[in-house]
């Protein structure tokens, strides 16, 4: 088992293994998203309260879920890289950040679009989920900005790892704070916690979308990390052999 993990941590092995995994992830993602989209957008019955507008949850909820998953992956791999000094872990964190930011943005955009027919405005500060997501976006921007500001890759890795870990501690606190803040005014919320039980015809497509998005994220992440690895190891022999298959020297 340890041997497998040890092997995985080596960049060339990861590069090859990831190349094999990505197509599978992509196929699964495509299948699940196709099912979820068709079932959710067309087949599921309209919500008794919101009509067809609710269908945006099939994108909004997975996006929001993934924005948090991406941050967790980013923080955990940054932590592994910092504590065990694994270079690959840092590459994973670096790759996860922009993806997470995009999912966060998607969650915000779909949340805003959903809000328009419901509240009449494009933005509702009273909604804790939306406000939390906005702060999440700032966390991602901060991480990426810090990385970009430091020239030395190893130093950038470690500094942003500290930031990611500090942010990780703060994320639950932020959520709680925003919940409390919005509970002072009974504002409209997007997803009613503990509301009427969601019926299976609505639930299964949603689950499919969430899992499908996760696989999509996985495929995209592995792809990004491959590129990161290639860039970071660009001086190593295995990369040169890869890029010049005929064996000629650069």
């Amino acid at each position, binding site marked *: 088992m340890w041997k497998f993990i040890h092997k995985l941590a080596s960049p060339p092995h990861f590069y090859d293994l990831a190349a094999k995994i990505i197509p599978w992830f992509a196929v699964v993602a495509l299948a699940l998203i196709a099912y979820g989209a068709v079932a959710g957008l067309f087949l599921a019955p309209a919500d008794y309260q919101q009509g067809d507008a609710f269908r945006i949850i099939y994108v909004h909820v997975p996006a929001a879920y993934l924005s948090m998953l991406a941050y967790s992956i980013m923080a955990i791999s940054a932590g592994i890289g910092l504590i065990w000094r694994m270079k690959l872990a840092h590459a994973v964190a670096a790759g996860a950040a922009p993806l997470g930011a995009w999912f966060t943005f998607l969650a915000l955009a779909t949340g805003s679009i959903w809000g328009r027919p419901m509240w009449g405005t494009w933005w509702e500060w009273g909604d804790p989920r939306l406000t939390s997501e906005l*702060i999440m976006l700032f966390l991602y921007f901060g991480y990426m*900005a810090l990385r970009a*500001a430091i020239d030395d890759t190893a130093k950038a890795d470690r500094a942003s790892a500290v*930031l990611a870990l*500090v942010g990780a501690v*703060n994320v639950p606190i932020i959520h709680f704070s*925003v919940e*409390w803040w919005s509970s002072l005014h009974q504002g409209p919320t997007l997803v009613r916690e503990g509301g009427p039980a969601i019926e299976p015809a609505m639930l299964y497509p949603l689950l499919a979308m969430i899992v499908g998005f996760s696989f999509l994220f996985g495929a995209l992440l592995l792809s990004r990390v491959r590129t990161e690895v290639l860039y970071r190891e660009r001086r190593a022999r295995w990369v040169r052999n890869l890029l010049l298959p005929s064996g000629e020297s650069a």
Partner: protein
Amino acid sequence: MPGLWQGLRSIVRRDLLLAWKRPGDMLNPLFFFAMVSTLFPLAVGPSPEQLALSGPGVLWVAALLAALLSLNSLYLSDFEDGSLDQIILSPQPLPLLALGKSISHWLISGLPLVIASPLLAMTFRMPANTTAVLMLTLTLGTISLSLLGSIGAALTVGLNRGNALLSLLILPLAMPVLIFGARTVSLAAADDAVAAGIYFLAAYCMLALSFAPFATAAALKISNE
């Protein structure tokens, strides 16, 4: 083995001495605080109800911005003149010294804001019963900001345009403080229960106290390389 208390005292004393020689360190955040607090009424109009309503929020945002302004230079001069090398290499644990710097930062930049806040609260026509809550929340809040802000300051010391980056990094950390601080004062003005907010601020402060010095120490070592 050097005494920990002596180490802490040394660095707090040094920073206070430096602030004494450069009074700007203390006065700048204070002036900024007062200035921002005055700009708001000028901009939104002098209606007393509006001022009283927005007072807690405005004062809190002003305090937050003033704290951000002063955080930028927390480690800058130490980094530039090589003192940071000596601090990192001292036999004292680095988190302890980082804590000391946060303490002195609060004494220099945070405490004056707390002391000045009742005066400014008066200009906002905030009711007198809110003053105690305002000062308490600002105390807990500015202490948290000094602690958490030092992490951001340590991460960005020596970077170009570290200023703007520092604000971006600290903003998410500061938001819970701002939310609970400002809203608790508003609740006090409406004679509602403030215990929840104050407990939260105290808990957040304790949390910051327990992990911020370690995070700052880790960040300092990385930034100083």
